[in-house]
Every structure is written in C-alpha cells, then in structure tokens.
C-alpha cells in the first residue's frame, strides 16, 4: 500500500512561471517530509524538508507547504528554470526514532520546464 502518493506523473511549465508539485500521504504518524530531485542517470539529491511543527519552509526559489489536516504537501518552484527539469520525489518519515530507514517515497513527478 502506497503511503505517500504523487498522483501527477508529469507536469509541464513555461520558464519563469510557478511549478507546483503535489504529494499526499495517508499515515498520520508521519512528521517529517522531504523533497528529492533526480536527474537521469543520477541518484536523487536532497532538495528541501519540513517538520510537522511548521506549515511552510523556504529555500531560495523552493518553498514547501504542509497541510497536516489534509495530509497534503506541495513544492512550489518560483520562477521555474529549464535546469529544474527532473523527477521530483516526495518522502515522509514516521518519527525521529524511525529515521531514514523508515522513509517512504512517492512514485515521483517528472517536471519539464519549457524555455
């Protein structure tokens, strides 16, 4: 059973516009969320994270929003750049003690930024 879901397999956005990638989770015990970016032939790289005590975290052009009541998080990229074209994975962790070995990943969303 997929506990972290990314329902959009792909997304295309014009350069300079906002990209919004969505992620839903089912386990209310998850309290730490991460986004990873993956280019072809490379491993995923950590992008940004958010703890459940927050509802927003920003890092440059990247902002992650968390809506705990809806069990939903989103990644906003503003402005989108062609170099952002990659597969984005959402991941969730079930508590400090469980840590990275209980990191649940979504299936990914392929973002294409059109120049």
């Amino acid at each position, binding site marked *: 059973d*997929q506990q*972290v879901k*990314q329902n959009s397999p792909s997304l295309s956005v014009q350069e300079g516009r906002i990209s919004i990638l969505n992620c839903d989770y089912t386990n209310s015990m998850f309290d*730490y969320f*991460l986004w*990873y970016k993956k280019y072809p*032939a*490379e*491993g*995923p*790289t*950590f992008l940004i*994270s958010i*703890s459940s005590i927050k509802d927003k975290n920003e890092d440059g052009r990247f902002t992650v929003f968390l809506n705990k009541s809806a069990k939903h998080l989103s990644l906003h990229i503003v402005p989108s750049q062609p170099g952002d074209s990659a597969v984005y*994975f959402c*991941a969730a*962790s079930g508590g*400090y*003690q*469980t*840590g*990275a*070995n*209980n*990191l*649940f*990943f*979504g*299936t*990914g969303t392929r973002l294409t930024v059109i120049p």
Partner: protein
Amino acid sequence: EAGVTQSPTHLIKTRGQQATLRCSPISGHTSVYWYQQALGLGLQFLLWYDEGEERNRGNFPPRFSGRQFPNYSSELNVNALELEDSALYLCASSTRPGSSYNSPLHFGNGTRLTVT
C-alpha cells in the same frame, strides 16, 4: 568531497543467478541504506546497515541480503534472481544512524540490474 559511489553501473543476469552490488558511502558516513526503484514505483526501502550491523530491513524476501564492511562500504546480494528483480538499486549514506532530521540521505547513481 567524493559522493556515494556504486558499482557496477549496469548488471545483466539471467533468472536464477546471483547478483552482487557494491556501495561506498561518503567519507565519515556510518549508515548505508539500500533502496529498490522498480519501473513505475517509488523508492522501496530494502536494508539499513550501521556500524557493520543490519539495523532494519524492508518488506523483501530473504534472498535479498547484504553486509557492511569495517570501512563502512556495503554489498547487496540478490540470490535466485527473478525477472521482477529488474530495477534500479540505489545506495544512500548518512552521518547519523536512524535519523533523517539533520542528515538527509545522500544517494549514489545506482546500479541498473536487468534479469533476463
């Protein structure tokens, strides 16, 4: 700083054979994680090693096994290969055992295993 390195990049085996995948973590990282990414699926947690010990394993059969060496490098062994084992196998390392909070996983580029 050298990243996580995995070898080989590609591996082709036939059904019933054994496959051995290798991983070298980032210097100073003691924890190594293995993930499987099959086509159309997210990353599925396989195994976690820290300080030479297997600390946890995901929902995979016993023919998936591995070990961690004193230098913290790791091997993943898959015995009696089945066609559905064809996937990208990713290794990741981190500094703090069992914590994702201050030590996000650093991934290698993966080994693409094809079973024919």
